[in-house]
């Protein structure tokens, strides 16, 4: 019995676990640790129209149970990704979710149009939530109107379903979700990083050259979980959730909160084997719990305590 396989728009997933964008490059490095075929999917590093170097270093800093990063969307550019990275990944039987970024609407449209034609790209992830670039990124992700328009434009040109990656740095995550749903999004991915900062103890200066960075890791899990809980009850879009997942229980929490699949970011840096370990553990836990399919647990946190008592009885 396969407890973990599922169908999401554009994606036939062996299991709901995938590395999050930017935390796995284009797969090569981690392919030295395990067979990438074990993964449900791979969210590749943000791709922009042009080659980008990104921000000056230092680009990362550690915080309590978290880390800040300001890579600044460094990537080899659309042409290189189309010609080298995606073809290299074709040797694996894993659907690719291409993370798309840009400075202007045109950038997003152009990258989406072309990258969605790659044979192994089964879905796009619109990155309207990168906090580490001056133009584009989060600017598109904090105003519902802009986000809706961008989604619409990308939907017009994309050959595959479009997931929109939401930023947590907003007053109402539900409004953002409803806006991109209205724009025609096929799914949501959430959350990107919270904007944060760390100072050098002695000099008082920001450690990260970009001054601020995006906070990820276990520290943000409670915020991510709450947002998935809220959004999943207000939209009908499937959610691929992320934020601080370290083990199978964390992944189950996001499913319980209302997500359908789960991505793992920062934890890859701590343990390169974390994704296959989670996949293995998930299957075992579900077996122990006598749960036929992981999606049977989806949204179980929505119940009132009364309902829950009833359900258990």
């Amino acid at each position: 019995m396969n407890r973990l396989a599922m169908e999401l728009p554009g994606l036939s997933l062996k299991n709901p676990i995938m590395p999050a964008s930017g935390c796995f490059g284009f797969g090569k490095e981690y392919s030295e640790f395990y067979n990438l075929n074990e993964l449900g999917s791979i969210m590749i590093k943000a791709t922009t129209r042009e080659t980008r170097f990104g921000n000056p270093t230092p680009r990362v800093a550690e915080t309590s149970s978290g880390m800040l990063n300001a890579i600044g969307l460094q990537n080899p550019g659309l042409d290189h990704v189309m010609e080298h990275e995606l073809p290299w990944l074709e040797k694996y039987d894993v659907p690719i979710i291409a993370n798309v970024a840009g400075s202007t609407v045109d950038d997003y449209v152009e990258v989406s149009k072309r990258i969605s034609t790659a044979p192994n790209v089964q879905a796009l992830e619109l990155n309207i939530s990168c906090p580490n670039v001056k133009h584009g990124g989060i600017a598109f992700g904090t105003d519902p109107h802009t986000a809706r328009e961008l989604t619409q434009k990308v939907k017009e040109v994309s050959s595959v379903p479009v997931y929109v990656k939401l930023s947590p740095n907003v007053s109402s995550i539900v409004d953002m979700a409803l806006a991109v749903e209205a724009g025609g999004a096929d799914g949501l991915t959430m959350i990107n990083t919270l904007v944060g900062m760390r100072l050098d103890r002695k000099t008082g200066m920001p450690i990260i050259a970009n001054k601020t960075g995006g906070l990820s890791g276990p520290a943000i899990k409670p915020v991510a979980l709450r947002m998935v809980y809220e959004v999943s009850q207000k939209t009908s879009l499937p959610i691929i959730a992320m934020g601080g997942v370290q083990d199978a229980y964390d992944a189950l929490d996001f499913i319980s909160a209302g997500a359908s699949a789960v991505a793992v970011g920062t934890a890859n840096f701590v343990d390169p084997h974390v994704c296959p370990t989670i996949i293995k553990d998930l299957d075992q836990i579900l077996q122990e719990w006598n749960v036929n399919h992981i999606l049977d647990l989806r949204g179980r946190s929505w119940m009132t305590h009364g309902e829950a008592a009833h359900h258990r009885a």
Partner: protein
Amino acid sequence: MIEQQNMTIVSHRSIAEDIFELVLEGSLTNRMTSPGQFVHVKVTSGSDPLLRRPISICSINQSLNQFTMLYRVSGSGTGTKVLSNLPKGSKVNVLGPLGNGFPLDELEAGQSALLIGGGIGVPPLYELSKRLTERGVNVTHILGFQQKSAVFYQEEFEELGDTYVATVDGSHGIKGFVTDVVDQLSLKSDAYYTCGPTPMLRAVEQKFEHTTGFISMEERMGCGIGACLACVCHVNGDESGLLYKKVCSDGPVFKRGEVIL
């Protein structure tokens, strides 16, 4: 092949002010080939500290399945502080060996090498010096520290070759920086190998404009294996500004002039 392993602490002691020597045992040691490589250490299993710490391999004892690292405790509440409290017998999760070390075949028996280390950049030079002397290379060490209390491994290096120690405040050895030692003693060699703070690396690179040299870089890291792009540096002579090297996987050792310090 990079591996992840819970290794056992077989010895752990303070060897200078805030400097610890940690000896770890496990089969991972067999994979360590090149001096100058490093390991990525997860100090505790919890999420505080969350990330691994990059620490150079200081010496390798493959027959005992042990390797040694030297590290500085950088303050209260840091990961290295937590590490320093682990007693003998504890397990430490190690990812490694990582990166590319110093090339050994650049020099032949009878040739001379200058090894220049500053502060916590000194450790990787120790295994390097052992390997070079094994090859019959004549090795001279210049080790720079802040002050006397920070000096470590002087005797260990002296056993392998001429060793000059400099301290910034003159409280031990020669007063000044490692480059002052080079000037005062007019030291020359067929190649140099250096590791330490970036300003020191720059000064060394300038001083030996016409000598083959290998430089070990430091940068804050995420993954340590080349996936996250936290640790990039620019490439010399690249006008586009778009080329880069990853310190963790292309380095940490680069040929002189290869990357912008």
